[in-house]
């Protein structure tokens, strides 16, 4: 597991108050019972933690998986280093 994935899962587990091992890359936030403003808060915590901005397109709360979210974070981090 990459560091980014590990840290992202930690943030989700803490915010959703769920066990870390229930989070799989293929889970959606909805599967994990994180909906509405809770999901938006998770994204906010991630943005604060990594100091990145995640565009709305990368935050599909219904269909998007946690794995896709990690990829989006990695994209933003890569962009930040290249700047």
């Amino acid at each position, binding site marked *: 597991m990459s560091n980014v994935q590990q840290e992202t899962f930690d943030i989700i587990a803490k915010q959703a108050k769920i066990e870390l091992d229930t989070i799989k890359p293929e889970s959606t936030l909805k599967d994990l019972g994180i*909906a*509405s*403003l809770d999901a*938006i808060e998770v*994204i*906010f915590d991630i943005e604060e933690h990594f100091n990145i901005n995640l*565009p*709305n397109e990368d*935050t599909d709360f219904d269909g998007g998986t946690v794995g896709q979210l990690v990829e989006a974070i990695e994209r933003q981090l890569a962009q930040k280093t290249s700047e």
Partner: protein
Amino acid sequence: MRRIVITGMGAICALGHDAPSVWKAMTEGVSGIGPLTRFDASALRSGGIAAEIKQFDPSRHFAEARLAFLDPLSQYALVAAREAVEQSGISFDGERASRTAVLVGVGVAGEETREGLYKRLYEERATRFHPLGIVRIMTNAPASQISMAHGITGPTFAVASACASSNHAIAQAALMIRAGLVDAAVVGGAEASLTLGLMRAWESMRVLAPDTCRPFSAGRKGLVLGEGSAMFVIETLESAQARGATILCELAGTGMSADAGDIAAPSAVGASAAMSMALRDAGLAPEAIGYVNAHGTGTVANDSTETRALHSVFGAHAPALAISSTKPMHGHALGAGGALELIGTIGALRDGIVPPTLNYLEPDPACDLDYVPNVAREKKIDAAISNSFAFGGLNAVVAVKRMG
């Protein structure tokens, strides 16, 4: 039961500085949305767009000494109230002063003043706060200022329910008149909160569209904020007839409900309850409604939820409804929303023109009704409802009817 009629209306928003200009722009499908000009919005992720009021010169409306007391929130409300009172021809002499209410829906407060002063306090480390800060910022400022400007001494206060504030204010005014507490009211809503702080707060909720507002359409990405005010003079039918006033329409009924669910996510059950209650209160069958001015914010969740609610309330009649959201024109004006939208609803009743839903691209399977896409439509409307559904799960619907 006392019948209530509307005898005056006034408005100011991105579409114009008086009700006739606003209504004309709605029939022409003009959009007031554009890049924010009031502050540097280039850093906003949401595209930095809004429906701003342009070319408004407060000194044309207010004396300099008076202006010092007025945040734009109160300026807009006063301009709209003055127009409504002039159109209705009502005067507040004698007993009329205490038999009239002033109710103004405000979702936020005098934000431009607040942010300006906080900037000085926190950023510039100022040690003194401007003495008129409180009276400019307070949520009840527009209601108080209207009562002072017109000498109205009856029940006067602000009504707050975020994006439903205007409609809750109108419902409250109607109930006061029916209860016999007053015979008339100056009522509506106002908002002026296009500030960097508020825009950032909305942006972080991920509800702002980066491109534009396209309610009920496939590809919609969220709402676009607006600002302004619309105010109305409402009174008993008896009072209007005694004065020989021109009656714009009947305020037939109102409906209110709370979702008691999520603080932000909308509920079809709560929305349906408010619509059904408004119809019942107005004594109107669902089939009597020709036009619905939808809440139609342009968010994925609102528009599909509102569509489900319309199906549940109107059943087989739902496909025959002309439904439109005028928010792509005047923006989502929060506390002023319902009042500005009532200008469009009354226009549809009076002129037989349904304002369109602009920026519509193509149907979304979750929004399968007639949203009058992009172009205004001629249609005789006898009765209409206007929906407002707020964050916090608070819903208020106003039903209006053509007179005679």
